[in-house]
């Protein structure tokens, strides 16, 4: 007889202490290894490997996320993603051919229409992909699921995005709140219905200073440029006889200066404010999530998100320095070799090598971004959670079925990828 008696009373005591606590237990090194080998394979398979890499990443993130002592499980497989992609391909390919033929027809109406159809499809895919991911998320032997019409969601989403553009971004908080309401109203954990309680006004108040720092200077700069252009001169100069008249009232330096200052300000403020924006948005979003009586609150600190981005910046700088040196040396060596060879062949070799180098560098930055920002933000958010009434999570009954991966495939084919 052999007995493995590992579970002792002390372990059970920690179990109850963990109620309401969320933890991320994954090691960063595992994730780095996963991403870097995945990146190399993506390069050599021209992206076919992405179904496996995506699945690996999700498995890692899900199963290392612990809530009240139990970890999540991602039960999706790479084969499902591949299948979804193939279905999407079958559906989209004829559509692309139709769009191509339509662009040959006179007028811009048709190409505009096809763009609109693609935007709708993108939002449709986002909703269906969320459904797939939720039904592959298992916690304590019970899965999440999502109901609701993806078509209705895509219509709402497109209308809201149109409103966001028309309102210069001021509608964004309300769009986020309404769309999240829609998603969470149709989200269930087992038989426990979800809902969203974040208010658009609240997000607007938090985000208004950021909006004032970016959109307002942009608007002022644009108006200044418009005023600086002498429109009457411009309209006469379009007649062929008079085309030497200056079109700028303030001289050529005036407009360039306004554009440069506005651009520099936007760039600097974007780099500095984006982490703040992300922190505010995530804290607001997480704190609005509800499942039955279970409420979530996030105490995500902006400084931590800044830390994550600083890490990204550090690694990216290091990578840039190394790659810059390598490319410099490589280009020098290549010019030595290719200089002597028949140049058509040399040109092809150079183009192939630079294509490969481009893809490798892009994948390098992608890997660094995933391993620092994606993982870092995920970890920060999980560790900032406070869950109340988590006892409810022990009495949830199973419900819902596994959904098809078509949404994932569509999202992939339309370049609308999520996690």
């Amino acid at each position, binding site marked *: 007889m*052999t007995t493995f008696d590992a*579970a002792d009373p002390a372990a059970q005591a920690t179990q109850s202490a963990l109620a309401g606590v969320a933890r991320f237990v994954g090691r960063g090194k595992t994730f780095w290894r996963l991403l870097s080998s995945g990146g190399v394979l993506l390069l050599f398979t021209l992206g*076919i490997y992405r179904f496996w890499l995506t699945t690996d990443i999700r498995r890692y993130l899900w199963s290392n996320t612990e809530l009240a002592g139990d970890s999540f499980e991602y039960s999706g497989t790479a084969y499902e993603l591949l299948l979804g992609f193939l279905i999407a391909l079958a559906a989209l390919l004829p559509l692309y051919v139709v769009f191509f033929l339509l662009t040959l027809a006179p007028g811009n109406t048709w190409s505009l229409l096809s763009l609109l159809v693609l935007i709708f499809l993108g939002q449709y895919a986002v909703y269906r992909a969320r459904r797939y991911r939720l039904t592959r998320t298992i916690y304590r*032997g019970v899965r999440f699921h999502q109901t609701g019409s993806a078509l209705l969601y895509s219509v709402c989403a497109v209308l809201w995005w149109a409103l966001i553009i028309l309102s210069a971004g001021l509608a964004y908080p309300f769009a986020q709140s309404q769309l999240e309401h829609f998603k969470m109203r149709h989200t269930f954990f087992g038989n426990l219905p979800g809902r969203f309680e974040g208010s658009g006004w609240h997000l607007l108040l938090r985000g208004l200073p950021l909006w004032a720092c970016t959109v307002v200077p942009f608007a002022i700069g644009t108006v200044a440029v418009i005023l600086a252009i002498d429109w009457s001169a411009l309209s006469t100069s379009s007649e062929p006889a008079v085309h030497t008249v200056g079109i700028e009232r303030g001289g050529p330096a005036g407009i360039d200066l306004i554009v440069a200052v506005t651009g520099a300000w936007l760039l600097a403020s974007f780099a500095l404010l984006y982490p703040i924006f992300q922190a505010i948005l995530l804290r607001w979003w997480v704190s609005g999530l509800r499942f039955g009586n279970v409420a979530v609150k996030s105490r995500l600190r902006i400084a931590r998100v800044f830390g994550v981005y600083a890490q990204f910046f550090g690694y990216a700088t290091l990578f840039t320095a190394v790659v810059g040196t390598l490319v410099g040396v490589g280009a020098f060596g290549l010019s030595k070799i290719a200089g002597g060879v028949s140049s058509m062949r040399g040109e092809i070799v150079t183009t192939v090598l630079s294509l490969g180098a481009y893809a490798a560098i892009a994948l390098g930055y992608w890997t660094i971004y995933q391993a620092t920002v994606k993982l870092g933000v995920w970890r920060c958010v999980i560790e900032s959670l406070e869950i109340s009434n988590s006892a409810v999570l022990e009495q949830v009954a199973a419900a819902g079925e596994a959904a098809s991966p078509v949404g994932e495939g569509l999202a992939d084919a339309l370049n609308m990828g999520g996690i």
Partner: protein
Amino acid sequence: MNAPNVDSSNVHGRAIFFDGLTTARHDVVIELAPRTLRVHGADGRALAEWPYDELETRSSPDDVLRLGRARDAVLARLEITDPQLAAAIDEQSAPVDRTGRIERRLRRKVIFWSCAATASLILVAVVGMPLIATELAPLVPYAVERKLGAAIDAQTRVGLDEGNRSGAPLDCGSAEKEQAGRVAFEKLIRQLETAAGLPLPIKATIVRKPEANAITLPGGHIYVFQGLVGEARMPDELAGIIAHEFGHVAHRDGTRTIMQGAGVALMFGMLLGDFVGGGAVVVAAKTLLRTSYSRDVEAAADGYAVVLMTKIGGDPRALAAILSRIGGNTHAGPKILADHPEIRDRVIAIEAMASSAPRRPLLDQREWAALKAICAEE
């Protein structure tokens, strides 16, 4: 608390069980019976009995072995934290993959075959696509080619007009003082067109671009750059280049390039997905593929030009002369140096093909002078 009803001759140990019906967490004793894994509740009740060959490893944190039952609609889960107990189960059950060895073997197969598929795709793109496009391009009706050409023409004109700050229109020959030049240019084109007898009308224009270049789009659009007119020392040189472009129209090279580009874009664009800036790679790949077969295409157009020039009584060798002078840089894409072997080969080939048939001037002195001044600046 009753002791679980465990046959003590079997290996057993503690685990956590979720029955898949509710989220209730059961502290259980599992028993490794000869053919099955038995799960006993704390009250001694048997909660589940799973055959070893139906066990399945599910994704879990590193220090937990999470088991489920294969093909079971109910998501019952068994979580084992004790490494020795986990090892004991792994030993009993073939499908349990505690160390990930089975998964790794499967993954190696996936990697091998996706690399093989990629290599095969690249081969098709490099070798197969040009062949397919060559076969299909002659089958495209001219009506379709003209529509395609009109769409591409609109985009190309915008591209050509970029950086044109003088305010003058893109096309030369529209102003009053440029009329004479335009008449001469049209005379030259008409001679070529009559002799060529192409199934679609040619729309040739001289545009205000300083480069010594000429481009041909599908649907018979030919753009001759101002820089080329400046470089030409006699009408036959300009006519030679234009006759070469006529060759591209006759061989439907524009349509073929477009078809090839579309095929490659379709093949790789969707495959690449959103991990890399896929679009940039596709564009670069298209450029690469275009340059890699352009040699034969150019030679064919040269041959056409020699025949056409002979037909209208021009000097076919003039094409060779201007080519060797401007370095063959008549086409967009990577710049090719003047002493390039390809250009030398082309020049030699043209010289060899050219016969010494009777000649006549294509334009008189006055017409040629007017044509040279077609892009008259203020």
